[in-house]
């Protein structure tokens, strides 16, 4: 079946793309199309004009600057698995990427698209939340940044204005000695949408006490969320089985699944406990990727 009709604009620079988004009412950006084309087929979206941002060089790079990693909104999920810097410094992103849909989708789907679409089950969201990511939104009137936690408002709802593009995701490169983990539960082992995602990032001092703990949930509420209650339980504490259990219980209580999906509370508990237990024995001096 053909797609519904639309006008397709193909700018070659970011400035040109932003001009088109500002001057064309109801223009909708398209990158990998893995959500948008599905939504257009189902009739959920019927944009009159699409602005193809898939080839804008400004959106396509991963680079390091002042201890931060800057990931262009147009970077495709598959690129995380081919980037030695990411593998070394942010292994949690590779862990997420390996469970993100499948090879055929990962080679099209972009980080910006996944965040802007803001499905509750978007896998990039909980991982980038525990990395303390900021998103940069750009329009013809300039760029503004905000924490990802503020950007994600609800199910399929963000603070992006129609004339803005998500140009960059930025987060501090985790210090050596930190550890992270990502766990996903879906209806299949692989190539599935998340029923629950849990991500964690832990930085500890020499004595093994947690200096900084971040825990986030995906698909367990309307928008991916940090869990300050569970983080508070662990801050200043060593990752003992008792503390881990307390933190997992807090996360379980903090989840806000839809009515009928109450089972997700239990899943959050199980996945949170599993991640933290895997992180616990990681020696502080190695940047351990835990699985």
């Amino acid at each position, binding site marked *: 079946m053909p797609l519904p009709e*639309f*006008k397709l604009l193909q700018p070659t620079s970011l400035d040109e793309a932003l001009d088109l988004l500002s001057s064309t009412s109801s223009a909708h950006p398209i990158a990998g199309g893995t959500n948008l*084309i*599905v939504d257009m087929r189902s009739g959920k979206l019927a944009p009159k004009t699409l602005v*193809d941002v898939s080839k804008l060089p400004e959106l396509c790079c991963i680079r390091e600057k002042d201890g931060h990693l800057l990931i262009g909104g147009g970077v495709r999920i598959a690129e995380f698995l081919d980037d030695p810097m990411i593998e070394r410094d942010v292994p949690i992103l590779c862990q997420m990427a390996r469970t993100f849909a*499948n090879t055929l*989708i990962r080679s099209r789907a972009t980080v910006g698209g996944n965040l802007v679409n803001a499905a509750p089950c978007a896998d990039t969201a909980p991982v980038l939340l525990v990395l303390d990511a900021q998103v940069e939104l750009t329009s013809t009137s300039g760029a503004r940044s905000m924490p990802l936690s503020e950007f994600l408002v609800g199910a399929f709802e963000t603070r992006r204005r129609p004339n803005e593009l998500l140009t960059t995701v930025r987060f501090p490169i985790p210090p050596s000695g930190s550890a992270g983990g990502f766990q996903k539960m879906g209806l299949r082992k692989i*190539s599935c949408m998340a029923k629950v995602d849990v991500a964690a990032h832990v930085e500890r001092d020499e004595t093994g006490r947690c200096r900084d703990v971040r825990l986030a949930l995906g698909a367990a509420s309307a928008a991916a969320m940090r869990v300050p209650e569970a983080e508070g339980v662990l801050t200043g504490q060593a990752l003992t089985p008792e503390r881990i259990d307390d933190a997992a219980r807090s996360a379980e209580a903090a989840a806000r699944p839809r009515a009928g999906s109450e089972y997700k509370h239990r899943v959050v508990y199980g996945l949170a406990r599993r991640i933290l237990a895997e992180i616990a024995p990681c020696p502080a001096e190695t940047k351990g990727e835990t699985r």
Partner: protein
Amino acid sequence: MTAKFIRLTVNGRSHSVAAEPNAILLHTLRDLGYTDVKNGCEIGECGACAVFLNGEAVNSCMVLTWQADGARIVTNAGLGTMEKPHPIQEAFADAGAIQCGFCTPGMVISTKALLDHNPDPSEAEIRQALSGNLCRCTGYAQIIEAVRLAAERMRDVGEVRNE
């Protein structure tokens, strides 16, 4: 809508084809005669339309034809011929991995994408690599065996790259 001429190189042959903005690469390829690219779900679920787009395996139903302007595309039929099949295609036939055959072209593309990166995959890696391709005949056991067999044969003769 205004059609535009789009240039594609498919299996080594150059084409210039008039395409509307809403044309999907899957349909454009089939209209050009590359009917080994199968039209399954059209929503990126089944992998039957998988092709190499500039060297990367993608679902061609998820690509607007205009987005592929100037691209180099390889379909299953571009990997081998009836007389000289690609070792992956041969392994699929030998392992009985083809029942109705509808999913096969996509399976072959995903298999090549896997073996190009990982010449000696474990069964778990094979299952992961093919997880975006559905076989409604459910002949997965033979398909996994075919990938294992292809990997073994390709390791024996050294890596074969036809792309």
